[in-house]
């Protein structure tokens, strides 16, 4: 026997020993380790919804309110999983894109952080949050002095006009559509085809370089909230490169994109023509931003836990602690001051594609069989996700009233018997559901759980993984070939009317009505509630409509509501999860030396 063999045998022996001698502790120490009824257990602290008030012209003056202990300068690193799908503001609707947009784009209005959880709607490029006249139909904004593009040229009212007009163009498909609809009609692209053929849009007036007037068809008292959306950040007429603008935007914000390797990295340098004195919203404290993409949340979390070297000056926009690390992160007292916890302000749904899943019995069966509790466990337990039963989010809905149509409070693990019965009553006793999901490690597992539960109820599940960067783009195609897919929707500004009329609104490619539920009856009802001047009555009505939609149409399965726990490096200050956007805001970030 030669030497090499003997050492190999020794390795074998040692490995077997390790097997016998291994002793890992159990995991009883975790809170609520015993099986509990899977009710939506409360998060650590009762969630306080953000307070948003209207700011004055004085509030709209720069610079931004500084966070405690702010240090200016330095290089901050942002690590995240995905690159931004869009950089053109008009194509940005997803929170990751609009949140990043705060660094390079500016809009007419915006949210100024006054204190933790307290915000004011103020003028960003405009001197105040707008002046309304003509009973809410006419909105007038005046641009500030000294606001400039990255080449030093002044931002004018013509640029603002151009920004709105170009959102009518064919190639803009993913952004918000409120202003366009208000200026024209619901199917706004039919009314005007964009400014590129030289035609101007009626309804916008620019009496001089500083003033811009919007004339809506109907009163819209909350239009200044709409202008605060990242999707209405402005684009210069002179530098508009149409489709190409999505790759190389022209900056009006505090930073310029210095380099960008798609899906890998990005570097931002200061925009010399941005003046802090004109900007009440953005702190822009670091000199340089380095953004890294392509890391899984697991690795990102491990880097923050380890907290060594340059990672101390790093944070993440959106990579929350994954289920595997939640136990460790939440039980480690030393991480307490680097931990941010915030429940999602969004409604999360597994939408049925009503064009394909036409049988309501089947949709109800899926709802009954839905393994809410098992998904919750896969996501990391009640600390990571709550199990709501309503379409409207309890954290952001005024006048919230819970109801439970599918017995989820008593049987969060799913009622297979009831589901089987419904499947038997349906048109097709052996149905198949094509479930499309975002291909991430966690979603792969959730898919196994869903498949397992639905197949117990006799519903065959075909799972289709979708590319994570273009996930939303794929499922928001009207002619998609999927039956069921997850989608999130959050109020665009604090008003109930920005949820229901959107997710059950007009069906269009890239639109937000992913269940394709669109009946005249429902549309009329929503219009009626939207125009109700009595806020409290409207809130009650929305809650009633919530239940009615699930009873009458069952267009979706209410998904688990995630609770994000996010870490940041020890030398990063001012990191806060924006309660409205549910993402770490770049406005207050600074690095300590």
């Amino acid at each position, binding site marked *: 026997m030669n030497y090499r063999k003997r050492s190999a045998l020794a390795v074998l022996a040692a*490995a077997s020993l390790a097997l016998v001698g*291994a002793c890992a502790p*159990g995991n009883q120490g*975790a809170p609520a*380790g015993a*099986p509990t009824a899977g009710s939506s257990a409360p998060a650590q602290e009762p969630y306080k919804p953000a307070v948003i008030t209207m700011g004055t012209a004085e509030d709209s003056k720069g610079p931004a309110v500084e966070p405690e202990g702010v240090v200016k300068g330095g290089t901050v690193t942002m690590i995240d999983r995905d690159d931004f799908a869009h950089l053109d503001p008009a194509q940005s609707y997803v929170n990751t894109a609009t949140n990043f947009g705060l660094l390079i784009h500016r809009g007419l209005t915006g949210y100024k952080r006054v204190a933790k959880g307290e915000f004011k709607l103020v003028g960003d490029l405009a001197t105040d949050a707008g002046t309304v006249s003509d009973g809410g139909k006419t909105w007038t904004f005046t641009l500030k002095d000294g606001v400039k593009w990255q080449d030093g040229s002044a931002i004018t009212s013509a640029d603002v006009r151009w920004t709105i007009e170009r959102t009518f163009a064919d190639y803009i498909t993913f952004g918000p559509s409120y202003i366009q609809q208000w200026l024209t009609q619901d199917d706004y692209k039919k009314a005007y085809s964009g400014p590129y053929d030289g035609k101007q849009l009626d309804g916008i007036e620019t009496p001089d370089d500083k003033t811009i007037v919007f004339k809506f068809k109907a009163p819209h008292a909350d239009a200044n909230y709409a202008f605060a959306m990242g999707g209405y950040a402005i684009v210069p007429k002179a530098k508009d490169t149409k489709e190409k603008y999505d790759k190389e935007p022209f900056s009006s914000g505090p930073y310029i994109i210095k380099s960008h390797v798609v899906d890998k990295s990005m570097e931002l340098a200061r925009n010399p023509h941005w003046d802090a004195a004109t900007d009440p919203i953005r702190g822009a404290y670091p000199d340089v931003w380095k953004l890294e993409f392509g890391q899984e949340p697991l690795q990102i979390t491990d880097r923050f836990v380890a907290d060594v070297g340059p990672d101390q000056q790093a944070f993440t926009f959106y990579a929350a602690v994954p289920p595997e690390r939640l136990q460790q992160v939440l039980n480690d007292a030393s991480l307490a001051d680097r931990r941010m916890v915030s429940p999602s302000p969004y409604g999360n749904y597994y939408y049925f594609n009503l064009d394909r899943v036409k049988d309501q019995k089947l949709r109800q069966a899926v709802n009954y069989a839905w393994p809410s509790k098992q998904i919750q466990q896969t996501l990391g*337990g009640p600390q990571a996700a709550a199990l709501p039963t309503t379409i409207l989010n309890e954290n952001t809905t005024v006048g919230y009233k819970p109801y439970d149509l599918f017995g989820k409070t008593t049987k969060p693990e799913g009622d297979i018997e009831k589901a089987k019965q419904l499947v038997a009553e349906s048109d097709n006793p052996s149905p198949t559901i094509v479930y499309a999901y975002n291909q991430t490690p966690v979603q792969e597992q959730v898919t196994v*759980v869903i498949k*397992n539960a639905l197949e117990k109820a006799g519903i065959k599940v075909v799972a289709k993984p979708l590319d994570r960067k273009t996930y939303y783009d794929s499922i928001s195609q009207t002619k998609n070939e999927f039956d069921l897919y997850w989608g999130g929707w959050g109020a665009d500004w604090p008003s109930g009317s920005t949820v229901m009329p959107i997710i059950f609104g007009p069906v269009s490619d890239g639109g937000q009505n992913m269940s394709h539920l669109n009946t005249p009856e429902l549309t009329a009802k929503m219009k009626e509630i939207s125009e109700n001047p009595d806020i409290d009555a409207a809130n009650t009505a929305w809650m009633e409509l919530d239940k009615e939609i699930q009873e009458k149409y069952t267009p979706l399965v209410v998904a688990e509501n995630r609770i994000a726990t996010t870490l940041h490096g020890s030398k990063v200050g001012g990191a806060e999860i924006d309660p409205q956007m549910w993402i770490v805001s770049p406005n207050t970030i600074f690095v300590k030396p």
Partner: protein
Amino acid sequence: MTTPTSTEDAIDATSVTETSGAVGRSPGQLMWLRFKRDRTGVISAIIVIFFFLVALLAPVISMVYGKDPYTLYGQDIPGLLNDYGYPIQPNGGISSEYWFGLEPSLGRDVFTQLVYGIRTSLGIAVAATLITTTLGIVVGIVAGYAGGRTDYFVGRLIDLTLSFPQTIFIIAFTPVVESLLVPSDEETPVWLRAVTLTIMLSAFGWAGLARLLRGYVLSMREREYVEAARVTGASPARIVFKELLPNLWTPILIQSTLLLPAMVTAEAGLSFLGVGMGELVPDWGRMFLRATQVYQNDITYLIFPGVALLIFVVAFNLLGDSVRDAFDPKIKR
């Protein structure tokens, strides 16, 4: 472990070993005798056979044991996993019920996952090894025997294959294959994944063996017995199959026994990188991937697939060594 060597080559055998008595033995018998004396080899062979039996008998084992690798026990039965999805019992939830514990989060049974995982990995590895070996033999002998221009071009093809960044290629190419072959309203079938993996592994594995055999054939082509055969008018097919191939079985057998464990690790590696089998098919490599994510809270889950793979690969490599030693005692020590 016998070899298909025919008894016709008795002349060759005497040149290798002196027989003391009057007993005539074929090289196969001699090899078998030497192999039986090698204790490491025998133990390794037993371990390897054990693994193959486990793979073959996975459904039987699962039936006797009373669990399957697909049911989410930890989720269906309360009290096994805590709220974070980790096993409540110590040692990753090992109990008389779940011998190797439970998978975190999904709560599948680790023992049956491992047994079926061995089946998946070994199945793909054996198929890939067979294809690789066949390809290697054909290309190697053709190149070596034909020589000249054929040899030159085959040689460059081998160079190309050997220098190709195969892992990156497989990672990039697998999704393309799937999007081409799978209709958008259907799931990727398990067999397609398996076939893709097998083909990919084979496509890049044959070159080493082919180059080796080409060298052997090149040196044997000019030997007297080949010349003699040629003079007596033997066809090239006869020369290849009856004169050359019997002498090549030794390197072929050794190479393929060393190739198989390499294929097993390669398959596990690809699953680890996310282009192996899907979440629904038990797989060794994916167990590792999951284990590396949870090892800080559940080390036990890493140990079982880890130790199983370690034992298998080491045993198979030792077996390969022993087979080589038994065939060719001169290079021992």
